């Protein structure tokens, strides 16, 4: 039995190819129906994220299965088989488990540590379960992957550091205000980055949102989107009294707010902290403002610096996470190996049970009528003798002292107890 993981990801395939392959998935039902017609594959899990299309499966014939999966990927009419030559990868056993754990822990993502990926894998797993595509091995693998992802998130700070400018603004605001609930935000001018930051702030429970724009119409539209109000640029000085976080992105050319203006306002604000974010180029806000007490001014370069450091921290944390994944991979493989002995253990127990029943029947016939208590005593006797006799061979199997060649001991036990002949139905021992 082997584990096989095949697919393409952002490192091997361009987005155009990934898109086409992802088209195979929307109809998950059809995909699983197709997969289930192949006898070589006993369990499968198909998942796509924005950066990958992958299939994880359990198979007895890895070579054949890999070839078939490749054909399955190439089924798409617009995918030429040569497209897959360079981008299609096949991981087996240890590599497959490790790759799957890395995907779930967001170590294999474009943005290392992004939290969405685990949700996508969970959804894919739900679909697979619905179509009865998974079995005992993949079920355990997937649950293990979830717990690995949780540990990676909890024990390494991989998701803690902002890696986008808009989110960096939010983490900074939190270091200044502690709690963002009820903090008023003023958007000065509009722009993609400013709107993203506003969205993040709103997600953190920010209070009143105000938009001041040169063209009032656009301001009104934006304000409506965020449930705030629009004001004209002339009202800016008054707004400075009530606002806590200001995001400026007009790029007007001159400073919209001067140092002295803010200085005067701070007195009237009773020194409540003010966080100014200037993401405009050229800058909107006088850099001297940062010298004032309780005022914190950040421009786009400062925020980029935060992001750069966030990346560095994430890379650093990722190495810790990789160690964790490697250790968990080995643990899972150990479990997988013990799995191989279970059919033999079951065969052993079945054989013992069959002998017991046959011998009991013979003896009971010879003894004549017995009381139910006597009969039960005999049954218990035979059952406990066989159980105790089998105890040591079973422990011997489970321990598996030769990890390099696990099948050697397995075969020995099978031969010792003549299990394979039994299975073929050739002979039972009683005569």
């Amino acid at each position, binding site marked *: 039995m082997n584990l096989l993981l095949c697919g393409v990801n952002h490192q091997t395939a361009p987005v155009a190819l990934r898109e086409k392959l992802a088209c195979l998935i929307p109809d998950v039902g059809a995909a699983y129906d197709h997969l289930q017609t192949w006898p070589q594959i006993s369990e499968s899990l198909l998942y796509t994220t924005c950066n990958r299309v992958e299939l994880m499966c359990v198979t007895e014939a890895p070579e054949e299965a890999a070839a078939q999966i490749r054909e399955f990927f190439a089924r798409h009419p617009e995918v030429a088989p040569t497209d897959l030559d360079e981008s299609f990868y096949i991981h087996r056993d240890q590599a497959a488990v490790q790759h799957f754990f890395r995907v779930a822990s967001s170590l294999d993502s474009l943005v290392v540590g992004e939290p969405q990926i685990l949700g996508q894998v969970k959804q894919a797993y739900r679909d697979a379960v619905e179509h009865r595509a998974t079995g005992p091995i993949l079920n355990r693998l997937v649950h293990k992957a979830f717990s690995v992802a949780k540990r990676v998130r909890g024990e390494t700070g991989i998701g803690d550091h902002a890696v986008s400018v808009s989110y960096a603004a939010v983490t900074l605001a939190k*270091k200044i205000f502690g709690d963002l609930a009820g903090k008023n935000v003023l958007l000065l001018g509009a722009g993609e980055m400013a709107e993203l930051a506003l969205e993040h702030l709103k997600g953190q429970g920010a209070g009143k949102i105000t938009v001041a724009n040169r063209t009032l119409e656009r301001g009104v539209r934006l304000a409506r989107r965020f449930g705030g109000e629009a004001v004209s640029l002339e009202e800016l000085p008054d707004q400075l009294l009530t606002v806590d976080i200001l995001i400026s992105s007009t790029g007007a050319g001159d400073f919209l707010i001067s140092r002295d203006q803010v200085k005067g306002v701070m007195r009237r604000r009773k020194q*409540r902290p003010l966080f100014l974010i200037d993401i405009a180029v050229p800058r909107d806000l006088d850099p001297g403002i940062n010298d004032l007490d309780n005022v914190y001014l950040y421009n786009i370069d400062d925020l980029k610096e935060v992001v750069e450091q966030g990346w560095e921290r994430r890379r650093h944390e990722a190495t810790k996470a990789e160690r964790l994944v490697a250790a968990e991979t080995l643990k899972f493989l150990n479990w997988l190996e013990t799995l191989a002995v279970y059919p033999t253990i079951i065969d052993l127990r079945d054989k013992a049970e069959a002998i017991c029943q046959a011998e009991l029947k013979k003896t009971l016939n010879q003894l004549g009528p017995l009381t139910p208590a006597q009969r039960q005593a005999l049954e218990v006797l035979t059952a406990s003798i066989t159980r105790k006799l089998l105890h040591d061979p079973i422990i011997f199997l489970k321990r598996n002292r030769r990890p390099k060649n696990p099948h050697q001991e397995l075969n020995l036990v099978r031969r010792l107890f003549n299990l394979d002949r039994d299975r073929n139905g050739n002979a039972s021992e009683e005569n």
Partner: protein
Amino acid sequence: MNHLFLYLALAAYFGATGLWLAYFLAQRETYHRAGAWVMAGGLAVHTLALIQRAIFAGSLVAATFGEALLLLGWALAAAFLLLIWRYPIKVLGVLVAPLAALMVSGALLLPPVSGPVSPLLQGFWLTAHICLTLTGYAALALAGLGGVLYLIQERQIKGKQFGFFYRRLPSLSQLDTLNYWCLTIGFPLLTGGIITGSLYAQHALGRFFSWDPKEILTLIAWLIYAVLLHERLAVGWRGRRAALLAICGFLVLVCTFVGANLWLTGYHSFAGFIQKP
């Protein structure tokens, strides 16, 4: 007298110091929780030690510098545990636990001064004076230590350096709130301590104020805190200036407590409290 309880308390405070240091470096919540429990255990045995002493001496004693240190260390540990229970500024433990440990070790290292305590130093008003002053010191010490953390964190944010401290210290607003709370609790206590002290002085010595170095320094500290509290409430001072003033006040208090007792002489210094045979 048996110092067993004090050594246990000392061990606990050092243990808590280690745990909070580990929390500060590794940022694991379990270290913080363990630190708080160990500190609480230390406070419990510290309390036992104080009770043992009080029973031995017949009243609450703060006649020597060592005894005053013991009481102050106790007040600091208690005030801090109360604080983090209601308002978790966890990293403050890194500063408070070693300070408490230092105070207890100081008390143990100082040579014991023997001799009967002057009868002048007993009675309700004096006990009230000691309790109010020392608990006030403890609360204001927390404000000062919080101020140090504030200045470090503010420097990181203003200077746009996001290093070691930036990640580990709490937000500026939390640290500023700590300053405000400790001030509003510590200032009335200190005021009460000064009032009871001068009333007792009037009763015992016949004058409210003796121009003793300790009294003058305390008055300076009181004025600093009064200005800070007034400006906070009236003008809305906060942040860096509030932190700086809290640190100034704290330093003056340290001078009052340590300096006035060790280097300056005056009737208020502990050396004069023990009757010479």
